[in-house]
């Protein structure tokens, strides 16, 4: 019986339990990484540290890296069982966001290319 007490606490569904949460250290690590990514973005955009035609790609990569840092260290999306539903929902959200943004940009770019030349006012 004793060995089971840790496993089956007498809990009504939905009653609070003490959840293990993140630590001050994980927030600080997240902050450090986020500052690093932010500073890198601003430096890359303001200097010729990167090959100039590659700057937009570099900025987008840094933005995705920083969003990843925020999701893991601040929003605590992890590989634990408590996160699986949230990650599935996030994957769907990312799909919709991707479709809306790339779809719009793609369609309008096509319209611009195929538009008949108009006399300038």
């Amino acid at each position: 019986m004793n060995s089971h007490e840790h496993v089956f606490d007498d809990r009504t569904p939905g009653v609070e339990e003490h959840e293990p949460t993140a630590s001050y250290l994980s927030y600080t690590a997240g902050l450090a990484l986020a500052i690093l990514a932010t500073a890198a973005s601003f430096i890359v955009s303001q200097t010729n540290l990167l090959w100039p035609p590659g700057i937009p790609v570099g900025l987008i990569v840094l933005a995705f890296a920083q969003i990843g840092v925020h999701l893991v260290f601040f929003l605590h999306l992890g590989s634990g069982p408590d996160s699986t539903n949230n990650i599935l929902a996030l994957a769907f959200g990312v799909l919709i966001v991707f479709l809306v943004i790339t779809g719009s940009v793609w369609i309008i770019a096509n319209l611009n290319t195929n538009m008949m030349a108009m006399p300038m006012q």
Partner: protein
Amino acid sequence: MTAAAVPTAPAAVPTGLARGRGGGGPASKRIVVAYGFWIFILSDMVMFSAMFAAYAVLYGNTAGGPTGAELFNIRNVFIETLSLLFSSYTCGLGALSAERRDPTRFLIFAALTFLLGTAFLVIEVTEFSGMVEKGAGPTRSAFLSAFFTLVGTHGVHVASGLIALVYLVAQVVVKGLHPAILRRLLCWSLFWHALDIVWVGVFTLVYLLRA
């Protein structure tokens, strides 16, 4: 529930690890509430994606008016970015202190979060009013309409977050850190961190890619 009513579950199920997934009983209310709020945040992200798309499509349509490179002050944007990032950090520490039932620390971190969020808003509003004075208001060109819609909506989210924070702090002061209020704080911190994620997209797309 009497001891006899407790079912003898198979010992092989890692009960502590599998709550809400069939084996370990229902997920705690905290997990369920946070999941519901997460769905709301994702729907908010979908709304922002439409505004990002509009901006990406329209940024070149300046109609002879000022371009982003002429209007934006990158130094100010960097300060805005840092204040929002640090407010996200203090918000996380505040939520942590609240969960550890440390009201004094929570109040200090909440005050810091509020100050940093306000600093962000003050810089943004100053930038907006400066642009409107220069004749670069939202009615000037399609680019500026898209800019004010995207950045303005983010600003409105930050402002409503600050109002909600005041309301939550008042609840903590009056009622103390009991579980229902801790869940509200958890949702609020999710909202605040999500705003910082949107801001990463804003400063990358709006201010850095076009500057």
